[in-house]
């Protein structure tokens, strides 16, 4: 059974850089394509909240953690290859048939 926000992501970035924006934009695009309406996204800037990076033991930015569904997954990088990112985050196939990796139903 799947609730309203069955997908939960936490994205760590460093500062307001092009790379940070790129990562956030790519992640949103992925979510809209694969799990529209079923996700929550939190963006954390480690410069403002280093203690949050500490808690999740983040080294590299951007890093996205898929918190739900469990088991969690971590993907490092700006997600510039959307198809690969979808596979890495184990997202379901899109409505129009673009492949994701999951067999989520």
């Amino acid at each position, binding site marked *: 059974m799947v609730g309203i926000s069955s997908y939960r992501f936490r994205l*760590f*970035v*460093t*500062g307001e850089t092009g*790379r940070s924006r*790129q*990562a956030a934009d*790519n992640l949103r695009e992925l979510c809209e394509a694969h799990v529209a309406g079923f996700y929550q996204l939190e963006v954390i800037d*480690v*410069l403002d909240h*280093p*203690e949050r*990076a*500490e808690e*999740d*033991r*983040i*080294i*590299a*930015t*951007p*890093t996205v953690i898929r918190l739900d569904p469990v088991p969690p*997954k*971590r*993907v*490092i*990088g*700006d*997600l*510039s*290859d959307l198809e*690969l*990112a979808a596979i*890495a985050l184990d997202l379901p196939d899109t409505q129009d048939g673009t492949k994701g990796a999951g067999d989520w139903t």
Partner: protein
Amino acid sequence: MSAGGNVPHRLPTGIAGLDQIMLGGLPAERPTLVSGTAGGGKTVFGLQFLSEGIRQFSEPGVFVTFEESTGDLRQSGASLGFGIQGWEDEGLWVFVDAAPVAIEDDMVVGSYDFGALVARIDHAVKRIGAKRVCLDSLGAVYDRFRDPSTVRLELFKVASALKAMGVTSLLTVERPEEFGPISRLGVEEFVADNVLVLRNVLEREKRRRTIEVLKFRGQPHRSGEWLFTIVDGEGIVVIPLSLMALRPHASEERVTTGNHVLDRMCSGGFYRDSVVIVSGPTGSGKTLMTSEFVAASAASGERCVLLSFEESLEQLMRNASSWGIDLAALERTGKLKIICEYPEVASLEDHFVAMKEVIEEFDPQRVAIDNLSALERISTGRGIRDFIIGLASFLKQGEITSLITSTTTTLLGGPSVTESHISTLADGIILLRYVEYQSEVRRGVVVLKMRGAAHDKQILEYTIDDHGLHIGEPFHGLSGILGLTRSVSAELEFGGPSNLG
């Protein structure tokens, strides 16, 4: 930032002996790379760098671990005598845990940087006001991200950030083999101007750990490999070679040798801070001379340590009593400490550290060591040289009058390995030799070298009886009676640049 523009000042590590070879310490507020093979002591080095900072200088530290768990590190620290847990509670030590979260590798999609790592280190440094940071080890980062060029660039940025934070940092890195490249991936060129190399090699079945300052960008340091050992409850102890030439002062005070004729031959005895070698073949009276030296120490109310590597305690005491010296009675006064050890029970480095500890604890004015040649058995040529130099240096710093015996390889004299190493370091050299004189074998003693003063250079005859050693008249009218010893004499007398005799 650093004082004096481009010239970094130094931050003493507090690790025994290390600051001496680095001429003061690590370049302050700079990163230094510590490279070594597995088991080379890199992590111990890093833990100790922070621990000594806290213990000796009240400088808080941040330990960034990429590989070992913080639990394992606390435990390793505890076995070395570092109370990391307590320091964490007091806000003097912070771990930045950058070890992998799961066994499964993180996937990488697209470009990234180490911004979070820098932010976490910066946060930890600011939180406790850290002066020292250790990153252990960079190799684990390469293994994890598998993209050497990105990792190299990002580590360079980390190093720059550490500099900007004004902390003195150590970055450890694995080395594939002892004498190959400094690190697997040429990190050192990018990350740090300063490189230390730890080595751990087997040589003739003896393990030898050394540390070398490979470069301090443009800064002076002592070159070469320096022995070190890792002591339980203490950590790394570097055995520094003698810095005799730089010794600020030399004592003018004389102390008795225990034999009044020998005192006269030395123009009044040994200098207070001198290291004197007594060289002679088996049975020539070295142990007797040692016993008299020890007895004289007690007679003048001085404290003395006698280290014997040749005989058992019982044998030592029996010998001494046959010359009328009661070592047991002297020991009971609390002024004398006798330690008898078989050389084979420990490595040379461990002997050195043990001797140093005994001497530091007992705080004697005199030390007698009988016999250095016995220690040669457990060492390689290089090892014994470093040992002797380190020992002499240590004894001199403590202004301890030292008598060290050495056995010649043949009955009629001749050089020994030990002597050729120590000849230039010793302040005094006394030769005991068998002499062929008028168709008899007699004994002759000569003071070959004695620092800073005129001394009697005649070869005097001596005898040994149950009252000790009696020095008599010169052998007159003969030349070449040192016969076989002439070559070694020349070598000893003119053997080195620091010969002041």
